[in-house]
């Protein structure tokens, strides 16, 4: 109250606005985040509060839309950004971000995870069929009419899975793979939640009838953690040979008003204190090797030994064309 009065008095005297803003003062760093990043009440937010206590730098979280929208906006406002730090550019968007010259310096990796085919354990047990392991398995007639994927033009796991097939078979041989997948009865959903909850049979409470879905390597532990009543085993498993590695990056934005404080925050984002909260909040893996993973993660999540990847520059250069071709092959 008193500080505000003083500030107001100072404002009248000097007719200057500097330093009087409540939430954008000197000690505040604004971090742009995607929709699913929690803005309060989670251990991740407590970790950020610890950062504020230790450094005196306040962190304001600014939700900018989904990851794609966030990057589009940052490219448009390059040089006069909405915030000081950006959290969560993934490797499929990284090139677009760096080509748009949005970062002050090279962004650092903050977490990783995998997009993989998940299977319904009970369904495969009931039908006495071994769940698929590799991408090749999915075009086997044994697994006809079982898989649901997301449209790569509309969904980020859908895009990741398409990239996995491109990494595995190469360009343009991946097109034949998708023609085969289509012949084998693949179903396309527009979004992850429709695929996972409406079409996939393994998600608890789902009325879907397809026992295979493109989801995350960390979906099984989420099924355990959020089960009602609590359960000790996962209803779903992961086909380890179908995974695409997603990496997320954070960095100081070019044109930030507080570059040194922003750099301190980015450094904190990779610290053990912050990183240890990632698995159970965002369901991704920490990059900091000092972090001890929670039990439910070591038990039920899968980190494939050799996930597929595609060079970010190649993704940026070809994504649109690949999506168009995918559209021709799978949907027309």
């Amino acid at each position, binding site marked *: 109250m008193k500080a505000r009065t003083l500030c107001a008095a100072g404002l009248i005297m000097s007719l200057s606005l500097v330093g009087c803003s409540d939430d954008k003062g000197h000690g505040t760093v604004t971090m742009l985040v995607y929709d699913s990043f929690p*803005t309060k009440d989670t251990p991740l937010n407590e970790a950020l509060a610890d950062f504020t206590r230790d450094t005196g730098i306040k962190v304001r979280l600014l939700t900018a839309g989904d990851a794609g929208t966030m990057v589009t906006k940052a490219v448009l406002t390059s040089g006069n950004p909405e915030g000081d730090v950006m959290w969560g550019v993934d490797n499929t968007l990284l090139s677009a971000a760096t080509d748009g010259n949005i970062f002050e310096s090279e962004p650092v990796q903050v977490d990783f995870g995998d997009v993989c085919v998940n299977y319904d354990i009970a369904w495969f047990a009931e039908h006495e069929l071994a769940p698929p392991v590799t991408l090749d398995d999915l075009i086997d007639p044994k697994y006809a009419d079982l898989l649901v994927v997301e449209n790569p033009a509309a969904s980020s796991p859908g895009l990741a899975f398409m990239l996995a097939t491109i990494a595995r078979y190469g360009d343009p041989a991946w097109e034949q793979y998708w023609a085969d997948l289509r012949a084998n009865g693949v179903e396309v959903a527009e979004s992850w939640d429709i695929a996972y909850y409406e079409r996939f049979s393994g998600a608890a409470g789902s009325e879907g009838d397809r026992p295979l879905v493109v989801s995350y390597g960390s979906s099984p532990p989420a*099924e355990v953690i959020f089960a*009602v009543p609590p359960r000790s085993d996962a209803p779903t498993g992961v086909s380890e040979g179908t995974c695409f590695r997603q990496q997320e990056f954070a960095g100081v934005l070019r044109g930030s008003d507080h570059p040194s404080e922003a750099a301190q925050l980015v450094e904190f984002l990779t610290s053990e204190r912050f990183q240890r909260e990632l698995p159970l909040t965002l369901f991704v893996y920490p990059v900091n090797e000092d972090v001890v993973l929670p039990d439910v993660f070591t038990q039920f999540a899968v980190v494939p030994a050799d996930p597929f990847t595609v060079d970010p520059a190649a993704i940026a250069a070809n*994504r649109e064309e690949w999506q168009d071709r995918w559209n021709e092959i799978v949907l027309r």
Partner: protein
Amino acid sequence: MAGPVERDRAALTPPNALPRWLVPSVALVPAIALAGLYFLPLATLLTRVIQPSSIGDALRLPGLGGVLWFTLWQALVSTTLTLAIGFVPAYVLARYRFVGRRALLAIVTVPFMLPTVVVGAAFLALLPAEWHGTARAVIVAHVFFNIAVVVRLVGAMWVVLPTDLTAAARTLGASPAQVLLHVVLPLLRPSLWAAATVVFLFTFTSFGAVRLLGGSAHPTLEVEIVRRATQLGDVDGAAVLSILQLLALGAVVWWSARTQRGGALALSGSSESRAARSRRERVGVSVTAVFIAVVMSLPLLVMASRSFRLGNRWTLTAWRTLGDTEVRPGVSLGVDPIASLFTSLRFAVVAASISIVVGGLAALAIATARRYGALLDIGLMLPLGTSAVTVGLGLLITFDTAPFDWRARWWLVPLGHALVAIPFVVRALLPVLRAIPADQRAAAATLGASPARAWMAIDVRRVLRPLIAASGLAAAISLGEFGATTLLSRAGIETMPIAIARLLGRAGELPRAQAFALATMLLVVTAVVIVGVISAAEREGFFSARRS
């Protein structure tokens, strides 16, 4: 100084003409709002991103013709069906008083206000599997979502339709069908056009329903614009397509505004909604009402029931844990449903206030202006037909430097809602204003009122009635708005639709059930707002029109 000239002009002006300053000063606020919040941002974005090559590049996109064709035909079919089907509840609700009438009105209106993410998921469960991903599913959903527009706009006109006209026709021997065709339909024409225009706009630019139900094989232009801007980072391509969409819609709206203007009829006489009299009538009304209620509430019930299903059992767990920050030791969802409820309510009040002030003034100006009214009318409809992505990105780069650095300001969200709601307010008021008989003003003038005073006493007073209904509509639109809100950057502000989407985006049964619990809360709040507005308005005699 200008004596003789003044006298000459006075001689030329009809004695009942309104003062020249009146219309421009009433139109000032809506015109400034439109210019600053719509045209300026859009122009800024276009000049910033579009290069000479972008237009050709965007227009040569593979499959664009197919996208345009699908967008157009599904919108035409959806609009026609919505009008035909919505006519029935509009009639029953406007003409009859019966037990549960308000509830039925609420049931019919609510789907329109709820975010498609939520109702769409329930809808998907109801439709047969072979319909998934088809144009049929899109059209059925469009009819379901937009029936409210017909009930609202046509119904608003129908309640002021003088019953003595139809009674006279019946007395003269016309069959009910003849009355409908030759008396009622011509009289309702302005509101039918208004409803058709709005439904067409909505279905032409449909995003959520198309994505959820039409599947990937059926993108509309809007879906393509959003994909270009947010997934591919192709902002210039998105901007070009956005302009293309605007041109197409602009043509339709211009044509519809012209048609409406010519078709307006002055109405006077007594109008009444009443209880069904004969037994046949009673049965007819009840059967229709129950049928409408069942069909319209099924998806909503499916949605609500999902909040009580966990572990294949019926349970209240999702509801009980809704406010908990910690669902398991060390695990939090970071979603505060109660806070999001209050945020949504606060925004709804702000958005409704802005929309009734701006929309009310705009409607008065449009109805009173002789020449330029249509321009303002079309102008205010444009934001509805423009992809929220383009306007959102435009705002972001237009107001980004002090003293106009508005980025991430909380009020941008309700302002965005108001931009969507204003055309509805205008649509709801215009047919009523245009139906004011000129002789009422003449009578006021004869009784000694100045033209401006007569205008105040007749036009402004007449607009107060539907204004109350329109404010409820605006509040409800704000409660369910999702698209524009997700595009605006926001600091710690979460409306209910956003909280729901966040819960839906997680794996695990509990967040899923909580999402549906929250959606059920949103449904109830929206229904309460609608019923509240209807009740308040009816207490004042606004809807039953008994004072008419």
